[in-house]
């Protein structure tokens, strides 16, 4: 593994993303939709509302915020391999000494960094607005410690899962849009577990959040290995799988 090669790919990807108007537009608009809707819901709740109703409303809003790290990465990750092939850059790229694990890890980091930044940014904008503008009971529910820990820990882990799903689709699909759509759909189950917490189907606690995070981390690492196996230079270049001689 070469950190130099990984750094080169990450730097190139971030430069390329920054100048891709479609991606920048999507990254700017989509998260705002997920921010505005829960804010409107929670800011309208009066202080006299029963706690159970407030918890349910906060649970729904938190779930929407978990959707951000699940839907943003696939939009970018879907470009990672098939996008290179579409613009004719894949072949020169693959004829360099880069190894597939380096390539995939670098692509994943390049997607993860802006995705996690946007997801955290949206969450903190949401939480701070609630803190200063919502009823006290609503603010207390949003800033409930297990809720905050779950949000902080699960956001990057869901994003990493979504990144690998997006890259896996990008490695196998023949069209960027198909890869984006399939990857977004396939990323959503990851937020199922967080839904159980936010709706208090599973009683939330810091210990539970950490335990589930460890499980998700193991899944993320296995996803990297799985996607590495999917990556076949010959198939990417010629469209047919390499056969042993």
């Amino acid at each position, binding site marked *: 593994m070469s950190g130099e090669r990984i750094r080169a790919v990450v730097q*190139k990807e971030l430069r390329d993303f920054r100048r*891709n108007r479609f991606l920048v537009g999507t990254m700017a608009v989509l998260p705002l939709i997920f921010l505005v809707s829960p804010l409107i819901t929670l800011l309208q709740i009066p202080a006299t509302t029963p706690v159970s109703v407030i918890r349910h409303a906060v649970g729904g809003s938190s779930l929407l915020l978990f959707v951000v790290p699940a839907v943003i990465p696939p939009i970018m990750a879907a470009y990672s391999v098939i996008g290179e092939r579409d613009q*004719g850059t894949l072949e020169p790229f693959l004829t360099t*000494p880069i190894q597939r694990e380096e390539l995939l890890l670098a692509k994943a980091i390049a997607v993860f960094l802006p995705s996690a930044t946007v997801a955290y940014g949206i969450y903190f904008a949401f939480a701070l607005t609630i803190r200063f503008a919502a009823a006290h009971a609503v603010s207390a529910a949003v800033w409930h410690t297990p809720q905050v820990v779950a949000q902080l820990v699960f956001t990057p882990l869901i994003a990493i899962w979504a990144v690998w799903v997006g890259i896996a689709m990008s490695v196998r699909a023949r069209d960027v849009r198909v890869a984006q759509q399939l990857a977004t759909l396939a990323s959503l189950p990851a937020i199922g577990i967080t839904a159980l917490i936010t709706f208090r189907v599973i009683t939330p606690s810091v210990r539970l959040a950490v335990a589930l995070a460890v499980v998700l981390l193991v899944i993320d690492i296995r996803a990297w290995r799985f996607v590495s196996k999917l990556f076949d230079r010959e198939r990417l270049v010629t469209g047919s799988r390499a056969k042993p*001689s």
Partner: protein
Amino acid sequence: MQATPALTVEHLTKRFGGRVAVDDVSFTVAAGEVFGFLGPNGAGKTTTVRMLGTLISPTSGSAVIAGLPLSPANGVAIRQRIAVMPEAPGLYLRLTVTENLEFFAGLYRIRDRGRIPAALEAVGLQARAADLCGNLSKGLCQRVALARALLNDPAVLFLDEPTSGLDPVASREVHGLIDGLRERGVTVFLTTHRLEEAERLCDRVAILNTTLRTIGRTDDLRDRLFRKRLLVETRAPLADPGSVFDGRPGVTGWEANGSGVYEVAVADAKLAAPGVARALVAAGADILSLAEQRHSLEDVYLELISEDVEAAR
């Protein structure tokens, strides 16, 4: 040229399912040689380059590239020593010329930042270093791709149809750059179906049509395929051409080919021509021209490829 080949290929074969793309191809390329790999569309040229560039694996056969046997275990080391310029430049259009080269320099772990300006200078692009590649013409993009291929100072440089789609001026510029590579001692493996390009640039050529049809210097290929002939043109038809050509030293046959035009088969044109000229003068002929018939690489190519077309019918 050095004795150790830069590239040795033995019985290389590639099948895609039931289709044979490259069949039992063997050749060597000497270090510092500009080697032309010619063939019609679908002949297997790009497949061969992809195999030698470790992008796809051969079905059978072996190769040694820049001193390393072609194998999955050597893939990274081989790619570190070679450079491949595919038919399409494959540049990141939203990045500048320098950013594109910085990216590839990072992939080759090149720490000497002077390499990028040097590569740009080699292709005459210093003034466009800060331009976005999306704003460059196709010819300039090819130049950037060539600069990219020079970054790692490759032992073998594979150029796959480098002038495809370029206008004559841009093509000439690329030819000039390849000449420059030859002067620098870079081993160049050039695939093309532009025969005049191969004839002008290459030390040796191989003609591929799934199998290797022939290989050698263009002069040798001409000699191998075509009998040597003198073309004789006189103002008026000779009264008795047989008495002029028959039995002349070095002349093996002759035929009239129009009024006052004769094709004289010879063993060695330089030895036979003076005697033929003297015989023509002695016969009172007014000689308009007397020259060796030259066959171009295109003639060689068409002769070989048309044999394949005939065989396929």
